[in-house]
C-alpha cells in the first residue's frame, strides 16, 4: 500500500508536468488550430537558457529568462504563421512547425554536445518523508508549482479579458473579429504562454531524480502529446486530465516494473494508452466531437 501511495504521488507530480506541456499544445491549438510539433524543442530551449544562466544569476531570474526566451521562440513561429499561412490547411501548419523543430533541435544538440546540464534548481537531491511515502523534494515542489500555475491559468482563461477573447476566437473567429477582438494579439499571447509554460516544465522535467537536461529531453516532452490528444486537443481541462492519466499510468508501470517481452513498459505506456482511447473516442475524452455539415 505504501508502495502504491508513493507511486501515486510520483505519478501525480509527473502528470502535473505533462499537464503543463500538454496545456501548451492545447492553448496553441485552440487559438490558431496549429499542432505545434516544435513544442518539445522550445522546452529544451527554455531549459538550456536556464541551465546556462543559473551559474551567474539567481535561479528565479534564470527561470524567468528561460520562460522569456521560450516565449519569444514560440512567438517567432506564430509570426511566421500569421504572416503568410493564416488560412492554409492544418497539415501545412504542422509541417511548418516540424521544419522549425528540425532547426531548433539540431542547433541545440550541437550546443549540448555530450554534456548533460543541470538547471541549478535549489532542491537538489533532497528527499521528503511524507509518512506514507518518500518523494524527491523537487517533485513535491513541482506538484505545488504546477497546481498554482494551472489554477492561475484557468482563472485567467475564465475571467480575464484575454481568456474571454481567446474563447470567443476559438468559438467563431470571424464573429469575434467583428466584435472588435484583435485576433493577432490573442494568438500571440497564447503562443507566448505556451512557450513560458514549457520552460517551467523543463525545470521540473530535468530535476532530481532524472539525470538532467540534454537534447533528448525533447522526446520526453513529446510524451505530453498523448496527454493532449487523450484529453482532446481543444480542451484545456482535458490537458490536465490527460496529463495526470498519462503520468500516473507511467509511474505505476515503472514502480511495479511491469515488463513486456523483457522491456520496461513504462517507456511506451503513454502511447499505448493514447491508441486505446483513440480507438474508442476519436476526438479524445473531453474533446469536441467534430460534426460535418453539408
Amino acid at each position, binding site marked *: 500500500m505504501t508502495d502504491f501511495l508513493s507511486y501515486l504521488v510520483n505519478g501525480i507530480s509527473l502528470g502535473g508536468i505533462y499537464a503543463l506541456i500538454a496545456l501548451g499544445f492545447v492553448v496553441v491549438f485552440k487559438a490558431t488550430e496549429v*499542432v505545434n510539433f516544435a513544442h518539445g524543442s522550445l522546452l529544451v530551449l527554455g531549459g538550456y537558457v536556464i541551465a546556462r544562466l543559473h551559474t551567474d544569476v539567481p535561479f528565479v531570474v534564470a527561470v524567468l529568462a528561460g520562460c522569456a526566451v521560450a516565449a519569444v521562440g514560440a512567438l517567432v513561429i506564430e509570426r*511566421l504563421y500569421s*504572416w*503568410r*499561412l493564416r488560412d*492554409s*490547411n*492544418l*497539415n*501545412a501548419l*504542422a*509541417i*511548418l512547425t*516540424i*521544419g*522549425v*523543430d*528540425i*532547426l531548433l533541435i*539540431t*542547433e541545440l*544538440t*550541437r550546443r549540448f*554536445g555530450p554534456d548533460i546540464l543541470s538547471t541549478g534548481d535549489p532542491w537538489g537531491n533532497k528527499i521528503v518523508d511524507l509518512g506514507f511515502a518518500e518523494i524527491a523534494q523537487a517533485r513535491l515542489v513541482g506538484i505545488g508549482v504546477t497546481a498554482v500555475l494551472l489554477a492561475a491559468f484557468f482563472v485567467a482563461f475564465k475571467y480575464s479579458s484575454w481568456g474571454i477573447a481567446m474563447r470567443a476566437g476559438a468559438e467563431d473567429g470571424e464573429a469575434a473579429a467583428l466584435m472588435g477582438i484583435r485576433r493577432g494579439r490573442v494568438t500571440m499571447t497564447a503562443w507566448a504562454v505556451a512557450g513560458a509554460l514549457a520552460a517551467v516544465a523543463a525545470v521540473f522535467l530535468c530535476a532530481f531524480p532524472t539525470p538532467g537536461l540534454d537534447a533528448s529531453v525533447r*522526446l520526453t516532452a*513529446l510524451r505530453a*502529446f*498523448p496527454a*493532449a*490528444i487523450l484529453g482532446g*486537443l481543444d480542451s484545456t481541462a482535458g490537458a490536465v486530465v490527460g496529463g495526470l492519466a498519462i503520468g500516473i499510468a507511467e509511474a505505476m508501470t515503472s514502480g511495479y516494473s511491469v515488463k*513486456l*517481452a*523483457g*522491456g520496461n513498459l513504462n*517507456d*511506451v505506456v503513454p*502511447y*499505448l494508452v*493514447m*491508441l486505446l482511447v*483513440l*480507438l474508442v473516442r*476519436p*476526438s479524445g475524452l473531453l474533446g469536441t466531437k*467534430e460534426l*460535418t455539415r*453539408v
Partner: protein
Amino acid sequence: MSDTATRSPAQARAAPGRSPRRVRPATLARVALVIVLAVLPLYIDTSLLTIGLFTMAAVVAAIGLTVLVGTAGQLSLAHAFFLAVGGYGYAFLAGESGVAGASTAQGLGLDPLLAAILAVIAAGFAGLLFSPIASRLRGIYLGVASLSLVFIGEFCYENVRSVTGGFNGRAATPFSLFGWEFTDANTLIVAGVPFGRFEKLWELFLVVAVLSYVFAANVLRGRMGRAMRTVRDSEVAAAVMGVDVRRTKAGAFVLSSMYAGLGGVMVALAFGRLTPNYFSLALSIGFLAAIVVGGLGSIGGAAIGAFFVTAGPLLITRYSSSLPFISDSGSGGYDGGKAAALLYGLAVVLVVLFEPGGLAALGKRLAGRRPARALTPAPSTGASP
C-alpha cells in the same frame, strides 16, 4: 463532340490516362537520367555507391509517403516504423537460426526473394492493422497518433530480440535471385570494371526504384488516385460521389506502408545490418521533410527530396574537408549531419512559406507552366513531377 481528333493539345494533356503520341521532353529527360544512373557504377567508387544505394532506398520509401500525405492528405509520422517492419521482416524471414556468434536473432531461412516479397506484404499488413485508427482520425489527430507507432516500434526493436537482435541489431542475409547472389563472391567483370556487391545492388535498386516510380504514377493517374485526391479535398464530397472514404484511406495507408516496407528491405540489403537507432523519429521527420521540399503529392518531387535529405548529409560529410564551415563530427561544430539537417529544416520552412508546391512546382514555374497552388498537386497531371 465525340470527335477526338479536334481536341486541342492542352485538352489532350489534361485527359488522364491518355498519353499524346509525341514523346514529351520530360519523359526523354527521365529516360536519359535512368541510363546515366545505370552506367554510373562503372565510374564511381564504393563510398559513393553506398550513398547511392541508401538514396534509392529512400526514394522508394518517400514515394510511398508522398502518396499518403500529399495525395490522400493523411499526415503520418509513422513511416520509420513501416520501414523497420520491412527491414526486420526481411532479415527475420531470410535469416538462418542459430548462426554462429552471440546474436540471439532467429530466422526462418526462406529464399531471399520470397522473404523480400513477404516482408513488403507484412509492412502492408501492419499498415492495415493501423488503419482502423487511421481511417477514423482526421489529419492532425492522425499525425500525432502515428507518432506513437515510432515509439512503440523502438520498444519492440530493442525487446523482441528473436526477430530484431535487440539493441545491437542483426545482420541481414545478402540478396540472391534464383540462386545468383548479390555479393562479392561471384564478381562479374563489366567493361573492365569488377561488379561486386555494391555494383550489383545498385543495378537491382535502380530497377526497383524505376518500377516503383512507374507504378505509383499509374496509381495516381487512375481511379484510386482520383479517389484519394477527392478524399483529401473533402471527405463529404468524396462520400457523396460514391467514394468509400474509409476504404480509400485504408488503401492509401496500406500502399504507403508497402512502399516503406520495400524501402526497409532495400536499407537492410544496402547496410547488410539493421540497428534500432536507425528507425528513429528523425527518420520519419526526414522523410516528411523530403516530400515537402520536393512538393507534396509529386512523385518526382519525392525522389528529388529523398536525394536531398538522404544523400545530402553523407555527401557533405564525405567532402567536409573541402567545404567551408563544416567540421568533423564530435568536434562540437557543424558536422555533415547537422549542416544538412539545418539546410533541410530551413528548406522546409521556406517551402511551406513561399512555395507550397515545393521543388516540383518551382520547376514547373521556371519552365513557364501553370502557377503553383497551395499544397495541392496539379489536379489531373498529379502524377507528373
